[in-house]
Structures are given as structure tokens and as C-alpha cells.
């Protein structure tokens, strides 16, 4: 059962990789990479159970944190042009 879940996760990760290569805009690529990161977290957790040693969950937690911070940082850079300030001509704050 864990093997089937691992296979499904790997197939989905391959699809998101294809989208991240094909993606017409930068947002498609960031979306695909963010989804890839979430699938990586799940893959680490499921593979721990598959190999009988579920000790990799700390790595999964750290990877989830890094994935979220990375996505938010790339989005802030794509929207504001730098990572320091929030100078923007739109009236709403993200």
C-alpha cells in the first residue's frame, strides 16, 4: 500500500516537473515547484513508512517550512521587484 502511494506521488511529481519546464509564465513554474515541494514532503513521509523506519519525518517538517518560505520569497520578488521593501503602485497589500 505504501508502495502504491509512493508510485502515485512519483508520477505526480513527474507531471509537475513537466509543467515547470513547459510553463509559459513564471507563475506556472513557481506553482509547479511549490506543488513539487509539497509532494516531496509527502514522499519523504511515505517512504519512511515504506522502508520501515519512519525517522525521516523531521526532514519532512523542515522541508515543508523551507518550501513555504521559498515560495513566498519568490512571489514577493516577482511582485515587488526586491525582497526588502513593499514599494508598489497597487493599493492593496499582499
Amino acid at each position, binding site marked *: *500500500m*505504501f508502495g*502504491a*502511494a509512493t508510485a*502515485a*506521488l512519483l*508520477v*505526480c*511529481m*513527474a*507531471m*509537475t516537473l*513537466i*509543467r515547470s519546464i513547459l510553463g*509559459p*509564465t513564471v*507563475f*506556472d513554474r*513557481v*506553482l*509547479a515547484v*511549490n*506543488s513539487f515541494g*509539497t*509532494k516531496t*514532503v*509527502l514522499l519523504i*513521509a*511515505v517512504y519512511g*513508512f515504506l522502508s520501515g523506519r*519512519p525517522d525521516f*519525518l*523531521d526532514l*519532512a*517538517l523542515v522541508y*515543508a*517550512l523551507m518550501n*513555504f518560505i521559498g*515560495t*513566498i520569497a519568490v*512571489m*514577493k520578488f*516577482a*511582485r515587488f521587484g526586491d525582497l526588502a521593501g513593499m514599494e*508598489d503602485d*497597487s493599493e*492593496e497589500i*499582499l
Partner: protein
Amino acid sequence: MDFPVATALGWFFLSAGSAFVLAGGIGILRLPDFFSRIHAAGITDTMGAWLIVVGLMFSAGWTLVTAKLLMLLLFLVITSPLASHALAKAAYVRGLKPMIGRELIREDDDD
């Protein structure tokens, strides 16, 4: 692991989560527009992650692993919609228009 009900529940949640994850992958690859792709990715990331982690919790039993999985579940449920929202907001503010209507045309094409 201890009694068959937990094992059966774990298998059920794991297979449901795998189905959601596969549907999300197909949606990311096949849908025509960025906003429809973010719809597929955001929903199936949250739902598939939830189901798979709950299935793993049923397989693990009452151990420290379950506590770690619970932390992972809480974190994924909070951050995955937040990242999707930030992505959609950034794309919309940067001027990417969604495709609307039955013929799937962008709304700035007709004028």
C-alpha cells in the same frame, strides 16, 4: 497495526490521497490556464496531503511518529492555501488575466 480496523482505515485514506494527488498532477499538466492550474494544484495539494498524512497516522498507531505527523498535517493545511493565495494574488496583480467564458478567451482579447 494493532487491530485490522486501523489498518483498513489507513489503507482507505492512503488510496484516497493517492487518487487526489494523481488528479492534481493531471490537472497541473493538462488544464489550459494558469488560474485553472492553480485551482487544481491548490485543492489537491491540501486535500491529498491531508488524506495521506491521516492514513500514515492510522498506520503508525499511538507513537511519537503520530505527533510528528500531526505537526506536519497542521503545517501543510495552513501553508498550502496560503501559498496558493499568494501565487494567485501576485499573478493577478502582475497583469495575468484569467480565461473566462465558454470559449475560454482572455477578457482583454475582445477589446
